[in-house]
């Protein structure tokens, strides 16, 4: 965009932007640097992998990571399937009710979502012989991740030419056949991108999860949170670095897929 800006003003903006990006990234970079520091204090004492070894030997961390992966996988698979179908249905014909509730699920403050689900579970358990556990966490994660899937898949559908589907129908395909063989392949990159985002929001959630998790379903963010509340801990720096790198890679791949 040509704005008639002077060179000096442009330099000023570039300088500001560099500072802003530093603000966004430096804190995470510093955590990564200190995760390989030999000392447990904030003084550099040389490179060491001891905190990573400690992390891998920590039973709580490993167990909660396994829980998180199971929960995120289950909720991602379900959210991606449900969300893709919903996006397709909304693309065919809009529904104020469904898009309204998906929107509401995105903007409701997390703490309200968490306590309302907790109240709902406690109420439902009066009639069902169930307890808080993995399943309640998966259902809670589904409730907030489906909207992300719908948004991403719907954005891709808006670039889809509906006459392609009509052509398939004219050539004798059934509705479901046309969806499966024509529309779905076109949506594939967006569906993969949506799945990665659903996985990210699931594996990262603390506020809602902590309210609806049972004793056997402590997730990684819950353990990280408990460690952080006890204070700074070099093992936590190592865990943070692993999580940030893993999620960052996932989000980058997801972005690529959506741009394609």
């Amino acid at each position, binding site marked *: *965009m*040509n*704005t*008639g*800006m*002077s060179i000096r003003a*442009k330099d000023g*903006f570039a300088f*500001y*932007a560099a500072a*802003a*990006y530093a*603000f*966004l990234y430096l*804190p*995470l970079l*510093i955590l990564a640097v*200190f995760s390989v520091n030999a000392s447990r204090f*904030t003084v550099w004492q040389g490179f060491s992998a001891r905190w990573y070894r400690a992390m891998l030997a920590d039973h709580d961390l490993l167990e909660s990571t396994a829980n998180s992966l199971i929960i995120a996988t289950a909720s991602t698979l379900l959210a991606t*399937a449900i969300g893709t*179908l*919903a996006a397709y*249905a909304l693309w*065919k*014909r809009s*529904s104020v*009710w*469904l898009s309204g*509730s*998906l929107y509401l*699920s995105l*903007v*409701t*403050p*997390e*703490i309200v979502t*968490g*306590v*309302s*689900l907790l*109240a709902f579970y406690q*109420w439902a358990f009066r009639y069902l012989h169930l307890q808080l556990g993995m399943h309640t966490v998966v259902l809670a994660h589904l*409730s907030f991740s489906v909207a992300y899937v719908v948004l991403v898949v719907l954005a891709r559908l808006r670039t889809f030419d509906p006459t392609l589907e009509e052509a398939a129908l004219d050539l004798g395909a059934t*509705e479901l056949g046309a969806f499966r063989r024509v529309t779905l392949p076109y949506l594939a990159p967006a569906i993969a991108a949506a799945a990665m985002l659903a996985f*990210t929001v699931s594996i*990262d959630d603390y506020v809602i999860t902590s*309210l609806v998790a049972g004793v056997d379903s402590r997730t990684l963010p819950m353990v*990280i*949170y408990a460690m*952080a*509340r006890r204070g*700074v801990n070099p093992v936590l720096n190592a865990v*943070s670095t692993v999580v*940030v790198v893993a*999620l*960052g890679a996932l*989000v*980058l791949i997801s*972005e690529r897929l959506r*741009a394609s």
Partner: protein
Amino acid sequence: MRALRSWFIAPSAVLMAVTLAVPLAIVCVYSVLTRGAYGGVEWPWTLENYSRLLDPLYGAIFGQSFGIAAVATGLCLVLGFPLALFIARSGSRKNLYLSLVILPFWTSFLIRTYAWMFLLRDTGLINTLLQALGLIRAPLPMLYNNGAVILGLVYGYLPFAVLPLYATIERLDASLLEAAADLGARPMATLARVTIPLSAPGIRAAAILVFVPCLGTYLTSDLLGGSKTILIGNLVQNQFTASRDWPFGAAISILLIAVAMALLLAVRRQGSELV
């Protein structure tokens, strides 16, 4: 065509009914019931939970929450606007720069909050550096106060502000800005009298998108705030856990969601498609 669509819409409709509509309805009902002896809810119905919201003790918590959310929102706008402007003007690198803003937004809010604990605490990096440089003797108390909470919120929600700001600035009619320059307006005058007023829809959208989650924040205030920083989110959490006063917690939740909805609808009514 009809049949397939209803099959496709059914799972999400059921999911939203079960995990959104029913839970919110339960919270609505609980908010007018009486606290049970062992933490549950009991009849008779009452409006007392709502009248308790007017208690000055809670008024102070609401005031503090609004204040902190407002300051964090203001900072996000002030810091985010020049960044959005920079991205919108960076030609072919636009997408790269935008991705760099979005990336941290998707990357663990919890860990990004913890990173500030690491930097701000008494034996953290900033205090250690300042002491090593001889600039301070005793560590500065930077963690566990409202300032740390505001910093954490700005850090967490800056991407939320940049996205709608960028979307608006990017679509501005370049010829208007050129016209201002041709007519002799200096860059700063063009910014103040053309760019910013024309970006009003994006600014409103950004303000609401940041303010709403900040108002309901729980995690940031719990980790970075001191014992005096009790915000609405922490109050709600407390009623449902330690205090075991579900009806009151439900009433606060309803208030929180009502404020959020009112703000979002107000911005939507202004014709902004960004919210």
